[in-house]
Each structure stands twice: as C-alpha cells, then as structure tokens.
C-alpha cells in the first residue's frame, strides 16, 4: 500500500482519474475491509431477503418457494382470514396497552427509585431480573400462575375462598390482559432502569431552581424533567416497540394462541403458515404486511426524529 501511494504521487498531475479511483479504494483500506461483513449482511439479509419475501408473497408457493405469479391473491385471502384479522387487532390492542403501561409504570417506578431510598441497588436488581429471563420461561411461569386449576385461582379456592375467580387465561375476552401482565412483568424493570439513568442525568441545580420557583415536585417531573429525557424516551420506545411487533414466544408459551384463536398474533400467523402450514406464499404475504405496517409508522417518525440536521 505504502509504495503504491508513493508511486501515484508524482503521476497525480498527468493522470488524476486512476489515482482518484485508487484513493477511493485504498484510503482507510483496513476500515473498509472491516466493514465488508456488515455491508454484505445488510445487502443480502436485510435488503435481499426483504425483496425475496415481497416477490414470493405474490406467488402461490406452497411447501417450496417455486410457485407462479398470482398477483394479489395471497393478500385477498389474507384479509379474508378471520385468524389474521384477529391477530392484527390483538397486536394493536396489546401494543397500545403495552407501550403506554410499560412507559408509564417504568417512569413511575423510576421516580419512586429516585427518592433516595434505601437498598436501591437491591430493588433495581429485583426489578431487572425478569428481563434476564427468556419469554418462553416468563410465559411458562405465568401459565402456571394463571392456570385456573393449578395456579392462583386453585390455591385461593383450596384456602377457602370458593368464589375466587382468576381465569383470564381461559377467558377469550380477557386473555389479552393475561398476556399483558406477563409482558409487563418482564419489560417494566428494564424500562425503569433506562428511565432512572435518564433521571439521574438531570442537573441537581434544575431541581433547586424549580423549588425556588415554587413548582411542585410532580409538576417538575412532568414539565421539566420528562422533556429533558427525550433521548432516553426515544430509546425506550424503539426497544418496547420492536418487542411488541415481534411478539411471538410469549404467546406460544403462555396460551399458544388460545383459547380458540383469541390470542393469536401476526408473527405466529407467519410462522405457522411458513413452517407448519406448508403455505409459504400466504406466510410471506402476512410478513410483508407486517413490514409495511412498521414502515408506515417508522419512516415518517424516523424522518422527524433524525432527519432535520439543523435541530438540537
């Protein structure tokens, strides 16, 4: 490398084009080599597979991706399937509640932790522990707790409260809330730790100034501190949001979509059609719809959040 650079230097005046080209490839060569795996991953996995997915969602592929082009047939079928429609509504409801409650409870817990309490690090560890478990374990544990015969309901009835009822997991109208409990149990601790870090980043003198101004503590949290935590909030929303969209393993472990189809979610629909239903075209159509939904939300938001360079 070194001698090419020396050779090209005197020739630069006569033939600048080849040397500029060389410069493009040779400048910071090691950095470019190091970036190749990631560039390849992005091109092949993210972009390549996305295009592949979209293409085959327009075919009638069954067990293997070999079918012929059928236009929007798979999509027509998709939206005529009640299982898909239920899945979408479930995800929207679960997502909205999960996002609001995780952020809300996470912030509330962080505020409580911020009150100079004793054993703070012990509490923090306890709160964060569920996050260390996989969704499968979380789902299994809560399945046992909420099982009407084995879990909480059975225990309470054995203790004498024979009217005690906690059967959300077996109740089609309440099963989403059962999912929500398990999801919150797992996710709130992490959100709290993020928020707590954000709270700790606020200058002590801001608090003093607010006290001198006579602003109540709760008002200071909402009107002054929360807006200052914008970066932390964005991080938390992105993490919680991506967790919601790919919600799958918790459902499999906790309810397996039941009772009936009342707790089905899109990711499970895609998986079932692609790997056990033997209908790749249908699964890919569902996957494409998920991607489209995420893009519709993400693109304008990302543009607003990160697009304008002059701000901040």
């Amino acid at each position, binding site marked *: 490398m070194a001698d090419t650079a020396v050779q090209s230097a005197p020739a630069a005046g006569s033939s600048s084009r080849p040397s500029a080209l060389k410069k493009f490839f040779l400048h910071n060569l090691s950095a470019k080599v190091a970036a190749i795996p990631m560039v390849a991953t992005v091109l092949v996995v993210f972009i390549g597979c996305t295009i592949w997915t979209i293409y085959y969602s327009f075919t009638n592929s069954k067990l293997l991706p070999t079918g012929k082009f059928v236009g929007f047939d798979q999509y027509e079928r998709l939206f005529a399937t009640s299982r898909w429609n239920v899945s979408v509504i479930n995800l929207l409801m679960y997502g909205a509640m999960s996002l609001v409650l995780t952020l809300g409870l996470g912030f509330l817990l962080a505020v409580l932790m911020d009150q100079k309490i004793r054993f703070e690090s012990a509490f923090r560890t306890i709160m964060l522990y569920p996050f260390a478990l996989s969704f499968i374990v979380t789902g299994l544990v809560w399945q046992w707790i909420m099982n009407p015969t084995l879990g909480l309901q059975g225990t309470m009835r054995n203790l004498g409260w024979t009217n005690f009822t906690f059967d959300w997991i077996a109740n089609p109208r309440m099963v989403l809330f059962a999912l929500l409990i398990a999801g919150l149990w797992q996710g709130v601790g992490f959100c709290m730790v993020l928020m707590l870090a954000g709270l700790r980043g606020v*200058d002590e*003198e*801001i608090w*003093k*100034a*607010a*006290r*001198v*101004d*006579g*602003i*109540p503590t709760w*008002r200071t949290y909402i*009107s*002054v501190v929360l*807006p*200052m935590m*914008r970066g932390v909030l964005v991080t938390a929303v992105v993490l919680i949001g991506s967790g919601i969209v790919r919600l799958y393993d918790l459902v499999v472990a906790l309810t397996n979509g039941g009772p009936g189809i009342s707790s089905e979610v899109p990711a499970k629909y895609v998986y079932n059609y692609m790997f056990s239903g033997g209908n790749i075209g249908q699964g890919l159509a569902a996957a494409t719809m998920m991607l489209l939904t995420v893009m519709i939300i993400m693109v304008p938001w990302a543009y607003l959040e990160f697009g304008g360079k002059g701000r*901040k």
Partner: protein
Amino acid sequence: MQPSVSIKDLSLNFGNVKVLERLNLDIAQGEFIVLLGPSGCGKSTLLNCIAGLLDVSDGQIFINGKNVTWEEPKDRGIGMVFQSYALYPQMTVERNLSFGLRVSGMAKDEIARRVARAAEILQIQPLLGRKPANLSGGQRQRVAIGRALVRDVDVFLFDEPLSNLDAKLRSDLRVEIKRLHARLKNTMIYVTHDQIEALTLADRIAIMKNGVIQQLADPHTIYNKPVNLYVAGFIGSPSMNFINGSLDGATFTADDGTKIPVGAYDFAAQRGAATKAVLGVRPEHILLGDAAQGMPFQTQAEIEIVEPMGSETLAWTKVAGIPVTFRCSSDIPLHAGDKVTVGFDIARGSLFDAQSESRL
C-alpha cells in the same frame, strides 16, 4: 431599620461533620454581601440554607423580620441564580421566565408585565422566543437572573453565577450585576471564590473558612486591615509577603536577625511582653528607589525574577532570607540581577500574632 436577612446561631451538620457552627450574620436592606472562601468552606451551604434548599440543624433565619427557618423556598421571598444557569432546557426563554408564575396561578397580564420588565432590564427582549441551547453562556446567565427578577422578591441569592463563563464575559457580566444592584437596590447575597468579584461587587465581604466567618467588613478594610493571617493570605494577588520573627516593643526581628522598626504601625491594642509575630506587607507597599528613602525600613535586595504585566511589573527578590514579591510601575526598568534599595511601608503593613494568627 430591621435587617433584610438575619441569621442567628445557625448550625448545620451532615452526620458528624459540622459544616456550619453557630453562625451569625445580619444583612442590611439593599446591601450587597459577598460570601468568599475556598471550596468546601461552607459558603454555598450557607446560601442554600438561606434559600431553604437545605434544612438547618439548629438556629434561625429571618428574612424581613419574618422567621423563615422552616418555610419552603418559594415562600421566603427570594430569587436564586445558579452556577450552571439551571434553565429549563425544553422551554423558551419567555417560558423559562414565566413558568414559576404560571404554576402559581398568577394573572396572565401580570405575568406578561413582569416578563416584559425583566427582559427590558436585562436587555434580553430579542431572545424571548429562543431556547437555552441557542444562547451563549452570558445570555443564559442573564435569563437565569431574569427568572429571579420576575419573582419580584426582596432578596437575590447568587451561587457562583459567573464561574462557568470565560474571563472576558465574566468581567462584563460583573459590571452588569453591579449596575443591576444599583438600579434595583435589592438585598443581594453572592457566593464566589473569586476575590476580584468579591472586592469589586461587595458592600461587605464575609470571608469564610471551615464554616466560620473570619471577617465581615467592607472591601477596603478587608484588604488593608485583615483580622488574621488567613484573611491576609487569601485576599490579594499576588498574595501578601509574610516574614516570621518576633516583636519586642517597636522593633520586629526577623528569624535571620534583620531588625525592622515598626513604630509607624497602628497597633490595635496595647501589648505586653515580646511575642512571636508575623509581619505582612502587600507587594504594592514595598517601594523602590527614591520612594523607599522615606520608609522606616530599607534594605538592599537583588532582583531574581521580573514579571512585566503591562500596566505594572512584579518583581521577586529576597528580604531577610525570605522570598518577597513587590509591585512597581512598568516605567521603571528592572532586570534580573539588579541590586536595588527597597523600603517597607510599615504603616500600611500588618502584624499578626504567630500563635493566635490574629492581628496585633
């Protein structure tokens, strides 16, 4: 007239550490008091106690005759300005000024009137729509002062407000604070570790060390008649020259035997027997050449280092075996190695007891 702020036997402990101990301070209406001291001397702690941001362990605080020892900060009639400005970053300047008033439920037109007045006094009308991130340090501090101003209070507290600014801005804003005080005539309590700020701004300076006020006096007295060795060494740059020795009658004998007549010195009290003492002379009270002739004590000295400062020159030499700095006009040509006659202006010097370190 009742004092604006009155502190009676104030003590503050953090666990076993006594930060402030039985501290008394009376501040007159409209007075500009500077609390001066090195970091850790308790000056900011005292200010926070006055503001009500720290609970005191013992003692009382009165503001305008009202006992506010256990009042919330907002009910004490104070406004406070912080070192880090502590502006609310997501609000515009206008919101920053008005937020506290809005929360307290004040009428809209009254808020607007007060914000307009503060903006006019501080010359920040063009900045009202901006956010703190788009302001310079000096502008931010002006907004922070404005936030104290709109509260329409009697007492202003400043906690090292200029420490985050660069030297040029600091001297500009210093003058502005002085102008503000001249216009508003409020009581102001100002904490700083910068002696220039203290000397230029204060009506009275309280020099603190280890939670105790060492001397409370006007800048002239503090500078010329420091009550003890600590104050004498803390105030003045370069600091006062100290010569250790002993005092017998009107003669001071340095440790190396040099005799210095101190008959011209204005002793605070009659003294008894000979004592160990420290003679302090400010660099500008050591005179050179012809001016030295009239002085009670003169000696030959060799210049070691010369520091030309533009308007004046600092020179380092040795007198009685001790390194001594003196200040002279930059018109006098001085070079290292020169032999000169220096004279001490004893009448303007200071003598301290070596044991008690207090002024004789």
